[in-house]
């Protein structure tokens, strides 16, 4: 059973933005979209393992800073190449101003 982990304060992530979240030896990103929904996905792009923390968030998508693959943050689905593999996503919720992710 996945455990809910406290990733960050909801305010740590600006609207339509992303921050990095490391847990154990794994790395993730926490994304906040234009409607204050939060998402957690694997931190590394599935194309060439570039970290998405410097990516561009537009609505509920994140664009990789290296070659511009776009992923849907809710489903992890890759929308534009060069990446071909979807990103892994993790259940995310906000409670008492904290972002919790189930890893």
């Amino acid at each position: 059973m996945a455990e809910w982990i406290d990733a960050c304060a909801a305010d740590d992530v600006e609207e339509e933005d992303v921050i990095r979240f490391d847990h154990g030896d794994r790395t993730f990103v926490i994304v906040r979209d234009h409607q204050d929904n939060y998402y957690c996905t694997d931190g590394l792009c599935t194309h060439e393992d570039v970290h998405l923390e410097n990516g561009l968030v537009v609505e509920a998508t994140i664009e990789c800073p290296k070659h511009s693959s776009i992923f849907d943050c809710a489903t992890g689905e890759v929308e534009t190449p060069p990446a071909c593999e979807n990103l892994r996503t993790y259940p995310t919720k906000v409670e008492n101003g904290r972002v919790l992710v189930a890893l």
Partner: protein
Amino acid sequence: MPRDYDLTGGYARRALDAGLVTEDWYKTPIDRKQMKALMKRADQPAIRDTLILFGLMAVFAGAAIALMPSWWSVPFWLAYGVLYGSAMDSRWHECGHGTAFKTRWMNQLVYQVACFCMMRDPWCWKYSHARHHSDTIIVGRDPEIAIMRPVVTLKLAANLMGLVDVPDGLRRMVVHASGRMLPDEETYVEAVFYPKTYRTARIWLAIYALTGLAALLFQSWIPLLLIGLPRMYGCWHMVMTGWLQHGGLDDNALDHRLNSRTVYMNPVSRFIYWNMNYHVEHHMFPLVPYYRLPELHAVCAHDFPAPSRSIPQAYAEMLPVLWRQRRDPDFHLRRPLPDGAHPYQKGPRASAA
């Protein structure tokens, strides 16, 4: 030492062993808020520029056709050719990055048109350019190195008329149309896209065949001057600006300030080239759209070598280096950094010099 640029050759292995195949390139630190503002997309600048581009192409082609067979048509053909054979290169580039327009289908539409004009398969070149960004001027890895060492002057000069690129583009098109990929492409293109590449090549060959047929039927050069040939008679501007991107600079370095060049250019060249004269900036931060590169340039200036002041000045800097590289392929330029800039990062970070 002469280099082996073959992507399937020994230098590819060497680059891996040397730790040069990595994401860990030097980046000038920029505050996240500022970076977000720089990456912000808009449709308006690219819609304006695209309307101007296609409008001018229609006007120049119309005037050229109306004036045929007079010699007065020549300047109009030449102007049309530069927009087809050179401006389409930068449209291919920007729309391939997905940064030109905010609206995705607009990027994709212009990308497809530009790919056709430039004779570049949309999928192969998407991946080849991704590799160029991952491994910029890493010998044995980067498929888009325009000036190889030692420099072969005749080959470079021939490409001012597309005499290297066009036969290569046609050869690839024929191979793709027959349902095959080339060995170098297999090292960087995802196999799921091969069928799309084959289909594109067949459609393009059909278009070129129809164009040739129309020329024969009407006993006229006009169809060929409109489609296909401008890739040759109009590509000189792309080649001229393209050589400046990395020519004479370092290779096998993990710092774009060492291997790329920013050059101030006149407004016409910047329109044709869609601001790719800010080339160090583009490589370091490829998500910044072309219309925000001047702003990015100002933000990074304290950490970058001084830009070349003009195209002639950049050539005056580069040509003697290329000449010397004919005998001494290891020779290259290293431009001084401003006081207070972060030192160059030649190799992997642990051994950064």
